[in-house]
């Protein structure tokens, strides 16, 4: 399965990256190589093999539904590049 420049452009939108024309070219070549390399997994017979999500045989982890203090709002907002006294600020998203 080869990767086209149009594929890479589409993925750059899905991945929320803005790539320059030259980055799109380089990325098409480089990703193509890596995808070509991982294609070797196709030769492995995985019929009836359960996928392994991680190393521990662990499922849902529950705890008591008890209230514990959470991060104060000011601390949570302290690193925001743009904020007001209680919210993160973003460019207008309505009325476009």
């Amino acid at each position, binding site marked *: *399965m080869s*990767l086209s420049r149009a*594929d*890479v452009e589409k*993925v*750059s*939108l*899905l*991945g*929320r*990256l*803005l*790539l320059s024309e030259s*980055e799109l070219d380089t*990325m098409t070549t*480089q*990703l193509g*190589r*890596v*995808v070509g*390399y*991982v294609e*070797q*997994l*196709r030769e*492995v017979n*995985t019929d009836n*093999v*359960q*996928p*392994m*999500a*991680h*190393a*521990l045989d*662990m499922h849902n*982890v529950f*705890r008591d539904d008890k209230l514990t203090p959470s*991060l104060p709002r000011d*601390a*949570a907002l*302290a*690193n*925001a*590049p*743009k904020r007001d006294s209680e919210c*993160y600020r*973003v*460019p*207008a*998203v309505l009325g*476009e």
Partner: protein
Amino acid sequence: MANTSRSAAELVSDLEGRKVSSVELTRAYLDQIQKHDSKIKAFLLVDPDAALARAKEIDDRRAAGKPVGKLGGLPVAIKDVMCTQGVKTTCASKILQNFVPPYDATVVKKLKAADAVLIGKTNMDEFAMGGSTENSAFFKTSNPWDISRVPGGSSGGAAACLAAGMAPLSIGTDTGGSIRQPAAFCGVTGLRTTYGRVSRYGLVAFASSLDQIGPMGHSAEDCALLLEVLAGHDSLDSTSADVPVPEYAKSVNQPLQGLKLGLVREHFGPGLNGEIEAAVREAVKVYRSLGATVKDVSMPHSKYGIATYYIIAPSEASSNLARYDGVHYGYRTDEKQMLAELGAEQQKYEAEKNSKKLADLDTPLIRLYRKTRAEGFGPEVKRRIMLGTYTLSAGYYDAYYLKALKVRRLIRGDYDEAFKEVDFIVGPTTPSPAFRLGEKTDDPLSM
């Protein structure tokens, strides 16, 4: 007298016996940093005043006869991927250049509780992606044994600061070899811990099914000492295992008599450096002379390890790194300029009557995300986000991610089989020694 060539265990006992004070010891390591780090560049951040103040506080407590934690004033360096409350945590990325965490990672909290002196934050590949520390957005770290060579990565600063005697212990993280490989390149000891052994709360996530925090030092004993402090269940990390923490430091000096060591045939194939092979075989001879028996085992799926990793790690990274959006924290692109560019593009497409381009034009919010991330991430991080986004995207999930998860089960099966026959698997950590700076930057697969 503070002697920076003593082992961590010896230093802890010197501190306990008041043969040396934490202030003297901390100052000795700070002197080493002052002397050598302009060449090695292992540290992204060192705050001598804070470290000395902390050391003094521990010394005072000891002098007053009050309880002192297990590390008793020993300096420890921390890879800059773990959150330190009130102290910048950058992941060696421009996107987090000015990020000041509002809380401590659990391991940092545990180190503080054990009375470690946090001596500095070490350099790494950006977001722990790489094997040479050349992917740091700030500067490259050199291998103290030969400064024209890389220290390995991604925990390159963590390994180099030990090798240069700038800290007695450090903490690294390992997703696909990021503790083991730099430890091998710098001639120190590193332990990739079992998944779930050490809490990852406050660790900046890369690939969540693989990331682990582990100790680095000059010997197994050093690592055992540090692991006792780091390990244990944490309700803040749902993947943390609720099993007791043994006293590792007490169990490191055991006879090898009767132990069965496995040599994996596939680890000694073509591509293995001759000197490394000779050194490993020599070590095995020593183990044998100490009473261990040696057996060849096979791991037929090990050849698929890298391909499996190159699907799983980027897939999970693309999801984890979605949080860097220029909104909640971290770098954000210049909003005015971004809006002006977007407006110009719109006018251009309108003039050209290019309805396709107009329909595809980003909204201001999407463009804010895209431009912020394009400016904030380095090339390797972008590559992995792209790769992972692709392998998780509609139509490819089964062919790549799900397939890789199945192959991972088969790789694990090889280990399960091997461990039916042997107690340990021994072998080379890397097929080749530390390479030269710049030698492999164009070849992402070869590290």
